[in-house]
């Protein structure tokens, strides 16, 4: 019998193999990578009983990505509603489901959210590079052929385990996808004191709009510009979610594929939960920044992680 697999009949614009990310390698200049909406990613693995770091697919937009199964397999789908169907029948998100031999799974277009996560039994097979299977286009690292390329038509996806048991999402735990607007928690950084008072007020009291210049490296927000008295700074390490303010005053939130060091002043950093939410915001979404302390954020983070223990 041939190996169970899914074949990519048609590649969408961007589907990437991701796990939780590449850690302990920032000093090499290698970025963190990993699932941008790590909360939905973790639920996808949880739904079919996988280890939390099992490699899954991050599907952006959909764009008619079509996957055909050659054997029955149980998969899990979370995150954005990309109008997924199996042989034309609508498929609900936040569930595990059976894809039978010969059936075609298609992701059409975003209806709510931007990134869907598709988990496979035991996790997808892909080379482990520097401790992770995450795929980073900019670094030409990871992916099926370790060239950082997204899924291509004709690619064959195989996985590590057998279909485990089915699980259902506990009530009220499904991550909410942002609709017209959402709130993003941010930990103020020490450089915040270098922003004019008016700018600090504006940062938290005006709606920001998610720009179409948004990808896995960074998401640009547009609104009334912020002014920092620091021009550039000497390049230093950049954490996930860093809100950097380039000279035009329009913030860029640095995401999973960011450069490891950079020289723009920063207002602070979104919390990991806020980063996951921002990763689901389509361009045009209105976002409000709200300040939280590092310890408040850590409490919320621990609460989020406790769902999976």
């Amino acid at each position, binding site marked *: 019998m041939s190996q169970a697999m899914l074949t990519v009949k048609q590649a969408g614009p961007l589907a990437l193999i991701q796990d939780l990310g590449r*850690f*302990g*390698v*920032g*000093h*090499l*200049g*290698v970025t*963190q990578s990993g699932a941008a909406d790590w909360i939905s990613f973790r639920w996808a693995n949880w739904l079919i009983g996988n280890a939390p770091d099992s490699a899954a697919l991050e599907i952006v937009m959909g764009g008619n990505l079509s996957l055909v199964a050659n054997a029955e397999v149980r998969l899990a789908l979370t995150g954005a509603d990309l109008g997924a169907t199996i042989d034309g029948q609508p498929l609900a998100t936040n569930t595990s489901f059976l894809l039978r031999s010969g059936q075609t799974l298609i992701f059409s277009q975003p209806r709510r959210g931007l990134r869907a996560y598709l988990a496979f039994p035991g996790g997808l097979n892909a080379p482990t*590079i*520097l401790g992770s299977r995450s795929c980073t286009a*900019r*670094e*030409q*690292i990871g992916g099926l052929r370790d060239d950082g390329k997204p899924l291509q038509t004709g690619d064959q996806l195989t996985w590590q385990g057998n279909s485990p048991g089915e699980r259902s999402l506990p009530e009220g735990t499904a991550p909410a996808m942002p609709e017209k607007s959402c709130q993003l928690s941010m*930990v*103020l*950084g*020490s*450089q915040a004191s270098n922003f004019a008072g008016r700018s600090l007020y504006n940062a938290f009291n005006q709606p920001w709009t998610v720009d179409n210049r948004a990808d896995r490296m960074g998401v640009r927000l547009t609104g009334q510009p912020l002014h920092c008295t620091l021009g550039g700074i*000497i*390049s*230093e*390490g*950049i*954490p*996930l*979610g*860093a809100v950097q303010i380039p000279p035009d005053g329009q913030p860029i939130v640095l995401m999973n594929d960011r*450069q*490891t*060091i*950079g020289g723009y002043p*920063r207002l*602070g*950093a979104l*919390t*990991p939960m806020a980063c996951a939410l921002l990763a689901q915001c389509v361009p045009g979404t209105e976002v409000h920044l709200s300040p939280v302390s*590092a*310890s408040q*954020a*850590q409490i919320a*983070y*621990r609460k989020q*992680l406790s769902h999976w223990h």
Partner: protein
Amino acid sequence: MKLRLETAAMDAVTVRLFDTIDESNMAWIIAADQTLRDALGEALIDLIPSYTTLLVHYDSQQLTFGQVATLIRSALRHLTPAESQDGQLHEIPVWYDESVGPELPLVAKRAGLSVGSLIERHCDHDYCVFALGFAPGYGFMGLVDEGIATPRLKTPRRKVAAGSVGIADRQTAIYPLLSPGGWNILGRTAVPLFEYAKRGEPLLRPGDKVRFKAIGKAEFEAAGGDTTPMEERP
């Protein structure tokens, strides 16, 4: 050296040691890097040293912000600079040629030098590796002789070939892999920086020294160098 701890994110602290770029910082940065790795142990997720700072990404499941601050302060209280300030010296062979180093004439003209003298000037210094970043294995090096310092291109190239050696202001660097970039490209090396980084063993490390050596096309090719001209011109 004056230690300051700054909140960078929910689970990240910027450890600031200096305010200006200086080669003498590196012995302290290297010492702090090792000390912090030892002190944080399993609670350390990532540690990114740079010119004047170290970014500590810690596991907030194991340590609170207050605990990590205390741990860092006590670990660095009696810090002394690393003994060997020199690190390793790497000689990097470079084929300086306009086909793979399109800004050679421009940088030479700005400096009022012949192309030959510009190459000599670029090779006539042991550059300090200040930081790794931008791309896997990419080392920011300096300081370039003020006479040949040249600002970045107004419009960055979409594609700079792997191995390209460039300068921007008083810094110089090698692009480990094909990437966009705005530095003035003078030549190309066959040294596979990206492959070293991907194995987790970067050739260039902060505090190391780099000396460029001009070689001819034949030697560059023999070392496995790619002679394809830069696809795009500014």
